[in-house]
């Protein structure tokens, strides 16, 4: 692999302006946040409190989920209402490890997690095997959502379930899983789930440095996911996926087996969600079956819709906008948040089918046109999104 090739790869993935934005983002995550949180004195105006670090870390986890959702919905046209499940499964896999890390410091001073003592269990159930090993937790974080998504997707795509049917049965799956996890007998803490974590890999989980490390890792994961997702959607497989989204029958008649493409992106998307969930749990300090409620999964879709389907940057922007608004409203005007969220759902689907990013781009393009430089408009669209602009307009045509 020589330098020329990597630079072509880089160019294929993003134009120079996007790389610059990404660099700025990396600077904020890797330098500004750690310095302002850990080094700046509490009294200094530059100081960032733990609250903001936790909030930003949480939102970055959501951004990874939104990316995953955008891959499957924005690029393959499959609206999953099960991504909350994959997110929670990753979170539970991490949570099991974190529960074991508590050791004997729980309320009951037992080797078993507190809730098992409470249920009067004498030993760990089978699925907790090896849960005190971090490498095993890491395997589970990837494997559990991955295998579930693969098996479910294999059968669903084989029987050509698509559109709303797919959405509804993924919702039923999530709902069933939620009911299952609410039961104490399942061995995941029932209603209360997992909480009161003490350590991660031996580090105190409440220490500012540990929290900052988690934050930085989350930021890095987000950037890597974005680049990988970008690689996928600009690859040949990505083009096929977009073709499937726009006219699946035609792609099949062209000789492509669409099942493989859909299964690949579906499983990849689920794994990404699982990783996001695993990063989320140590930062918020709790995981319970409420994360699997159907409402959460639908909310993920609206992050993507707000930012703009079919644009990876849009997914991240949407996750930041909606969740930023959520934490603002739930603190300042808690009783109005549902109105706002509901209206976002309604107005975005009615008036903003391309999302915020799509809106900005068309404004940019229109501005360039009025200045009399149509090529500027082309460039503006081209550098940012490659081929997706034309595709998303095709999307709206198809749906109109």
């Amino acid at each position, binding site marked *: 692999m020589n330098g020329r090739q990597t630079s072509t790869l880089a160019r294929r993935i993003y134009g120079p302006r996007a790389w610059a934005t990404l660099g700025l983002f990396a600077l904020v995550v890797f330098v500004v946040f750690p310095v302002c949180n850990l080094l700046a004195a509490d009294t200094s105006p530059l100081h960032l409190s733990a609250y903001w670090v936790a909030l930003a870390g949480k939102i970055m986890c959501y951004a990874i989920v939104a990316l995953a959702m955008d891959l499957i919905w924005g690029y393959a046209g499959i609206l999953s209402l099960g991504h909350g499940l994959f997110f929670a499964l990753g979170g539970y896999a991490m949570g099991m490890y974190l529960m074991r890390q508590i050791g004997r410091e729980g309320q009951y001073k037992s080797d078993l997690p507190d809730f098992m003592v409470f249920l009067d269990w004498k030993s760990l159930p089978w699925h907790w095997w090896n849960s005190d090993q971090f490498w095993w937790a890491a395997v589970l974080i990837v494997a559990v959502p991955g295998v579930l998504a693969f098996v479910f997707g294999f059968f669903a795509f084989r029987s050509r379930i698509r559109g709303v049917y797919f959405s509804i049965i993924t919702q039923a799956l999530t709902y069933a899983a939620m009911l299952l996890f609410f039961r104490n007998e399942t061995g995941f803490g029932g209603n209360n789930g997992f909480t009161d974590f003490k350590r991660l890999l031996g580090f105190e989980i409440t220490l500012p440095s540990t929290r900052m490390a988690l934050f930085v890792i989350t930021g890095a994961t987000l950037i890597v996911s974005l680049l990988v997702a970008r690689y996928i959607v600009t690859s040949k497989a990505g083009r096929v996926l977009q073709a499937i989204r726009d006219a699946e029958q035609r792609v099949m008649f062209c000789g492509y087996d669409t099942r493989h493409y859909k299964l690949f992106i579906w499983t990849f998307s689920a794994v990404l969600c699982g990783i996001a969930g695993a990063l989320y749990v140590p930062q918020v300090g709790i995981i319970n079956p409420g994360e699997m409620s159907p*409402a959460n999964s639908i909310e993920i879709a609206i992050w993507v819709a707000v930012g703009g389907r079919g644009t990876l940057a849009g997914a991240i922007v949407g996750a930041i906008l909606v969740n930023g608004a959520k934490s603002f409203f739930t603190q300042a005007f808690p009783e109005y948040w549902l109105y706002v969220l509901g209206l976002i759902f309604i107005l975005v689907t009615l008036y903003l089918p391309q999302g915020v990013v799509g809106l900005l781009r068309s404004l940019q393009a229109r501005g360039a046109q009025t200045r009399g430089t149509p090529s500027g408009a082309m460039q503006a669209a081209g550098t940012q999104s490659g081929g997706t602009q034309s595709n998303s307009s095709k999307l709206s045509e198809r749906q109109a």
Partner: protein
Amino acid sequence: MSVFKHCCLMLLMAVAASAWTGASVAADAPAPAAPAVAPAAAAIAHEQLIKLVSGDGDEKLAVINALVVSGDPLAGRLLKALAEGQLQAAGSRAVIVVDDKVVDAITAEALPALAADHEEPIINNRLRREIDGALATLDLVSPLRAARLKAARALAEGADEAMQPLVAKALATEQDPEVHGLLEEIAAGMALRSDDRTVRLAAIAKLGEAGGANAKKLLLPLTVKSPDGTWTETDDMLRAAAGRSLRLIDGRLAWGERMGLLFAGISLGSVLLIAALGLAITYGLMGVINMAHGELIMIGAYATYVMQSFFKVHLSSYFDWYPLLAVPFSFIVAAAVGMVLERLVIRFLYGRPLETLLATWGISLVLIQVVRTLFGAQNVTVENPAFMSGGVSLLTNLVLPWNRIVIIVFAFVVLGSVALVLTRTRMGLFVRAVTQNRSMASCVGVATARIDTWAFGLGCGIAGLAGCALSQIGNVGPELGQGYIVDSFMVVVLGGVGQLAGTVYAAMGLGFANKLLEAWSGAVLAKIAVLIFIIVFIQRRPQGMFALKGRALDA
């Protein structure tokens, strides 16, 4: 309540009091011969109450018994006041003190503040137990059927020999078949312990004829061996009779269980049916993924609540008739909300199912919050009209609640009406025409946009009717609809889109499957199993059980 019944109840209370408190009143007191005596005993004197406050333990007990025997309506209040320490003695007068307000204990007239020499009662644990017992006894003769039933159930669990006269008296006056049955069983259980062989034989036969689970518990000891290998019941004939009776009871219980399961299945099926019926129109016929369907059910339930509250305040004497207005009211409110939504939002999204899904989800969030703002986040109670409480007792362990029966009938009436509207009316014809071939219908002059609005309104109105029905069997709260949305979609998807018959079969099938599995594995696992089954079923037959035959490539 008739005077006669009232007197009888007082007598019953007198006997019950003596039995419960275990004091000697039953033995000492002359048998309460004539009902006319009872009111004479009703007067409560201040000296008695003073004894409650300052007397010694035995004196207090005697007064408590006397209070219960007196059957005076005041007794319950006085005993409660005593238990709270509010009953106090001020000189020769007994008073009740609540938050510095002093009233005469008997006449309830307001009195000036207490003098310094008043005396407060000392309540120890024994006394407290006696008071609780006495209060429970007062419940037994309550005019409320539920209270009597509860007391009879408590007796059935463990009846004391001393209560035999009480049970006999109660049997004579009890009108309610369920309580009466329980009392008979209790009486037979007591007779079982008698020394007279013929009485025991008769009791065994009686239990075998009519007894339920409790009777089984009573008879079982007669047919088992004690650890040293001898029969606990030495009389062979009695033992054989007990065995026969047990077999009879078992057979009856098994039937009761089977019938109960069948009924539970039909009942759940009808709930699913009525919840999904509106969706069968909006989704099944029109193809609109209406995630706010559950919230329209919720709105129907709240409309019923509003109508119920209105009747309670303004027309309380006609309260039992409120469903007559609540049913059309919930239909109209939900239909109106649905039609507004269709005009404002949904009509822009026809043909874009995924967007419809998201937008209607947003609508559902807004509706939930609107209801929270209007009615508060807490659940509200919708009272059943009198004719819907209670149930039909078919077998000893099979009681069919009236509200369930009414809902089953209601679901099928609504189903029939919907079928009639769709097949026999002009509007139904138009709805079917528009859903089958929109452009052709438009060509021949059907106002398709208006038909869409009406059809959507019809579907939503039926959701409102579902809410009206569900308000009679469960809690009504802003999140009511969320619990039904997944189920409703499962029913419609399983039944096959565009088919009312499919919806009926799917709802009934899921109802039965759920209840059968529930009996076998518990409610939550049953639900999970059913969901998994549907997911697998959809994999095999994506078009549901009853697919309309079509040749479209993209169904």
